[in-house]
Every structure is written in structure tokens, then in C-alpha cells.
């Protein structure tokens, strides 16, 4: 088993929480894992990404090579496109459909979505809307996205849910329940 994942978004959106849940589930599966994160200046509303690598064999490089990623998981549609050169020919894009506009020259969202749809294997999800429908707070939108990406992860749904329970248990049952609901909403969205 080997999955190379690029997590993308805008600083502050919560891509690292997605990585934390997947990482926890992978560790419990006894998989090897490497996860390169971005800290520092870019976290201030800039474009951020994290390279998450899972494998049943030892992993050397912290970085994913060009055309090496199985999945791009992005909380922002333009940010998903930024890493296209890293996507394998048969790779998947799983992205939020809603633009995060904090720059004056943000392109036409229809053009952005057209480019996403031009990738054969793509999943577009309105994560905030689905979070709302699931009765989860807006902060759980990242868990909706994670739910939508589960089919491509090669990790069982139940094992991801178990990861969420372990990670959020400290914050109480209500937080666990809303995050689980968010993941379920994303998982069923297809």
C-alpha cells in the first residue's frame, strides 16, 4: 500500500487537522508515514500545503516528487490547481468548491471550477454547506472534505472514524459527534 497525498489550502483553513486524522488512522494500521508541513510566514493567509505520504514500506523523502501524488485534497479550489504538476496521470482531486477570496486578483470562479472538472478524476464538494446540513459547525468543513476523500485513501471508513474519536475525545463527546457527522456527510456526498 502506498498513498502520496498533497493537502492544500489557505493558511488557517485547517489542512493540518485533516493530516492529523489520516495520520492517526495510518499509524494504527501500522503504516509508515511522513508528513511535511508548512509553518511560519505563509500561515498568515498565504497558500499552504502539506505532503502526506503513507506506505506499508519505509518512506525516505519527506517531499512528493512531480507527478507522484495519488490525491490532491484541497480546502480551496484554486489551491487545488496550484499543485497539478504533482498529480499522477490517474490521480484524484478532492476539493472544496467554494473560493476563499483574500486577494484582489482572484480569478473567475467558473474558470477555476472548469479547470478542476477538466481533471478526469475529480470530486467537488461544497464542504461548508454539507457541514451545515450535518449540523456541524463551520470549523468542521475540513472533516467533510476528508470524508469525501476516504474512498481514495485505501484506509477503511471505520478506521478514519476511529481516528477522529481518538483525536477529538479530549474535547468531549459533542465535538466527536459533530466531526463524525461532518465526515459522514462528505463520505456520502458523491
Amino acid at each position, binding site marked *: 500500500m502506498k498513498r502520496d497525498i498533497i493537502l492544500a489550502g489557505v493558511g488557517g483553513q485547517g489542512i493540518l487537522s485533516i493530516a492529523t486524522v489520516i495520520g492517526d488512522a495510518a*499509524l494504527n494500521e501500522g503504516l509508515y508515514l*511522513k508528513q511535511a508541513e508548512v509553518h*511560519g510566514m505563509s500561515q498568515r493567509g498565504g497558500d499552504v500545503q502539506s505532503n502526506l505520504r503513507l506506505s506499508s514500506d519505509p518512506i*525516505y523523502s519527506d517531499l512528493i516528487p512531480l*507527478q*507522484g501524488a495519488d490525491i490532491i485534497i484541497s480546502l480551496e479550489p484554486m489551491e487545488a490547481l*496550484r499543485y497539478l504538476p504533482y498529480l499522477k496521470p490517474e490521480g484524484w482531486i478532492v476539493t472544496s468548491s467554494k473560493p476563499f477570496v483574500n486577494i484582489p486578483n482572484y480569478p473567475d470562479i467558473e474558470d477555476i471550477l472548469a479547470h478542476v472538472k477538466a481533471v478526469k478524476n475529480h470530486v467537488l464538494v461544497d464542504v461548508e454547506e454539507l457541514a451545515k446540513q450535518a449540523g456541524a459547525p463551520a470549523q468542521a468543513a475540513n472533516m467533510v472534505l476528508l470524508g469525501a476523500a476516504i474512498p481514495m485513501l485505501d484506509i477503511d471508513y471505520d478506521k478514519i472514524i476511529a481516528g477522529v474519536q481518538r483525536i477529538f475525545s479530549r474535547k468531549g463527546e459533542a465535538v466527536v459527534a459533530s466531526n463524525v457527522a461532518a465526515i459522514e456527510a462528505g463520505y456520502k456526498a458523491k
Partner: protein
Amino acid sequence: MKHLLLGDEAIAQGAIDAGLSGVYAYPGTPSTEITEYIQLSEKKQTRGIFCRWATNEKTAMEGALGMSYMGKRALVCMKHVGMNVCADAFMNAAITGVNGGLVVLAADDPSMHSSQNEQDSRFYAKFAMIPCLEPSNQQEAYDMMHYAFDLSESLRTPILMRVTTRMAHSRAVVETMDAPREQNMLAAPENTNHFILLPAFARKNYAELVEAQADFVQTSEESLYNTYTKGSNPEKAILTTGIAYNYLMEVKGENGKVKSESVLKIAQYPLPKALIDQMVADGAKEILVMEEGQPVVEEIIRGMVPSTVAVKGRLTGDLPRMGELTPDSVRKALVGDIVLNSGFQMPEIVVGRPPALCQGCGHRDMYAALNEVAREHENAKIFGDIGCYTLGALSPFHAIHACVEMGASITMAKGAADAGQFPAFAVIGDSTFTHSGMTGLLDCVNSNANVVVLISDNLTTGMTGGQDSAGTGRLEAICCGLGVAPEHVRVVVPLPKNMEEIKQVLREEVAYNGTSVVIARRECIQTLKRHLKAKK
């Protein structure tokens, strides 16, 4: 026990488990998480490890040397440019030698993800003539801390451990010890002359250090962290340092063509001469040097191998001259460019998304007022400094005209005023001010330089994530204590509703022919959010 740890966290846990008594550091990306991890660990289970942030890297280095003097193990952490700040203490700690183990951790930032240059800290180890460790992965980083402290105590020298951003900020599974080793007992050095660097004593110490070089090389040659593997085609050889080894292995894994070269994996310096000699004796005609950062080894090794051996790397263009290595740049050097057949390119409509000051941040209101007052003059100059507020250089403020290194805003504004510039503003954060701005302000006071120093005080070290700031609550007293006239130490609250007042205060201080300080004080909104959440 197995844990998923950042490289920085592996280093921190490694230091704790090696019997650490104190960590001394000033926050700086990508090194900050080491000290934060130890602080958090102390909160969970007190081992009495000193872990309060230092005012700057020099005070940190000196504090650590003092702890080492008393026989205990100390760790100093900083980003690469922090080495410049502590260089005086660092260089001379190599001359005094150590009592308790002393490890200096420098986190370099090739590609300048969060830095103003990509200087390579390995030069400092060579400069100070001390051993240097450069782990290739998180497990090695953990294991090496123990080794580093042992090495420091057995060789009686500080050890420099050098990591880079990808190592510091990447997570992997790390197997740790079950329980930490005991800390050292308090034990002052038997021979204090070693720590008194009068020329007569220093010459003796330096001679010992020079003599120890052969031991350091031998230790490198015998180190388990330096390994040489003869290939089936030994005419070609690859030398990797630190994490470059991972990219080599990545490319080997994906490409069957690369398997015949000899490989020398280096994670400890000075360079292991015997292993390099062996590589040449085995027939190496070409050595490709893969190293993260500047071409340090590539330059040194040219003087160690016969001139008939071709040394390749960053200087020859086989690898990029600057920036961090990637699996792609390493692949290109080994087997040529990858054939990209996915057809996926970044669409042209994708635009850059530069970082920006947070919405609601006090620096924004400070810049809004400052820009308006500055525009009332034909040729105002604003000298910036290092921190979140450096982003004032970008849209929408375009406010600052310089930003060089910690503290330079004040002294450059002074120099500009000395040259005849009016008005000359300095913009500096509270933490940067106590790090390296106070001495510059004293220079201003002593020549009554006509500058307006704006301290944008958000009560924290913001850029690195909100660590304690050394002068919080005492900035006015510090400025007055340095000799700024109390009536020219002004405090404003940077909020849109106070815009007129802030501008008026700035105008008055511009009109004053002398050194004034305007403190714009409002808590960082990131730490404010955290504090409010904690109260709930």
C-alpha cells in the same frame, strides 16, 4: 514507545531523554517547536528543565554555557540567522570547551521559506572547529541528541547540530526510550582557567582545540552515522549529507537505473577522511555531492581528493546552486529529467497568494496611521524590521523601505538621520525590540538622533506563533531607562477609532527634533483568540 513527531519534536524528546537540564532559545522558524515541545513536556511532568524563552540567541548561548559550566546538560536552539547573533559566544565556547554537555541546534532554511537568507550553519562548525551533526531523518535526530551530549562530554567541546526546514517540520514515526536518563549533578569545572579567556589561557585552549582536530576526524570516521557502501560501479560515487540521502533513496526506489554507484552517507563532521580516501581507492573518478544548503562539502572535498577526480554538485550546475533539494532536482542530477506525461500543468489563471497581516491586526491600524503621516512629507523613509509587520512591505500598505535583520530598523533610521534624512521612522515589534533594538535606541539617545521609533507592541512574539515576549509590560520603563525623554515616550492603541489621535501623536513626535518612541499597543489577535478560548 512509538510517536509521530516533527523533526523538531524528535530533537526535543531526544534532548529530554538524554538528561537535559536546560533549553535556551529565542523563537525562529524552523526551530521554534523544539523549545515549545520541552515547555509543554514540563507542564505535563516537571523534570525541572529550565525552558523559559531567552531575550535573544546570544543571551541563550551564554545561559547554556553557564549551565554547562556547572556540569549540567544544556541545549541552545535557534534558526540559522540566530547563529550570527550568538556568534561571539558560540565561537568562544569552542575555545573554553564545556563541562556538562552542550549542544547548539541551528535550523537552516534553504529556499528561504521564512527567512531572509539561506546561510549554512555548517560553516559555523568549521569556523569554530567543532564537530557537527546533521541527521538524515527524524529517528536519527532523536537518537543523535543522546549521542551529541555524550560526544560533547567526552570530547569536552560544544556540538553543533544542524537541521533544515524539511527535517524540522516533517513528521515521522520515532521510537523513543522508555524513560529519560538522569540529569547531571551540579559540578563546577575543576580547572576554571579553561573558562577565563585571557590571551595567555586562550592560546593554550586554542592549541588544545587545534590538537583535538585529529580526534574529531577520527570520531567522524568511526561514527555509526557515517557509512560508506562500495557500489558495483565504483568509478561513480555519490556523497550525501543529512536529508539529501532520502532523495537519493527515493530516486533509487523509483528508478532501477540507479544502483551501481558507491554511496557515502554523511551525518557527522568534520568530514571522515578515511572514508573519502577509501571511496577514491575503490576507483571513484566522479563524485556527485548532494547537500542541503550551500556547497560546503563540495568545496572542501576538492582539496581532499586527487585532481583527476571530478567533483560535481551545486557548483557545477548538476544540482541547483540555491534552494532546497527536492526528489526532482536529485533525479535530474542522477538520471535526467522525468518525462511528464500527465498533461497536468498549473493553469495560467492560478495567481499567487502571498501571506498578509490578519484581519483585525493592530499592525494594520499602525501602518494606516503611519502611512498617512508619512505622506505629509515629501520624502519620508520608514525602516522596517523582522516580524509579522514586515508584511507591511506588501499590498495594501507598501509602507516600509527597508528590512534587513533583527533590530536594524532603529539603527538604520539613525544612520539615515545622521546622513540628513528627515523624517526617519523605525518600525519594530516588541519582541524584536528587546531582542536587538534596545542597544540601537541607546545609540539614538546618545546622539539625540532625530528619529521616531514606532514599537508595534502586540504583547507577544507573533510571527513564530505567539511566544512570550521578553519586555512585555515594561517597554516604557525600558525606553525611559535608556534615556528617551519621558514626554517623548508615547503610547497609543492601534484601532480604527483612534486614527486621528495616533496621527496627531506621530505628527508631534516628527516635529520634535530628537529621539522619540511611539508605542502602538494592542494584543495580537491570534493570541487574543487563544486567551479568550482558554477562559471559556
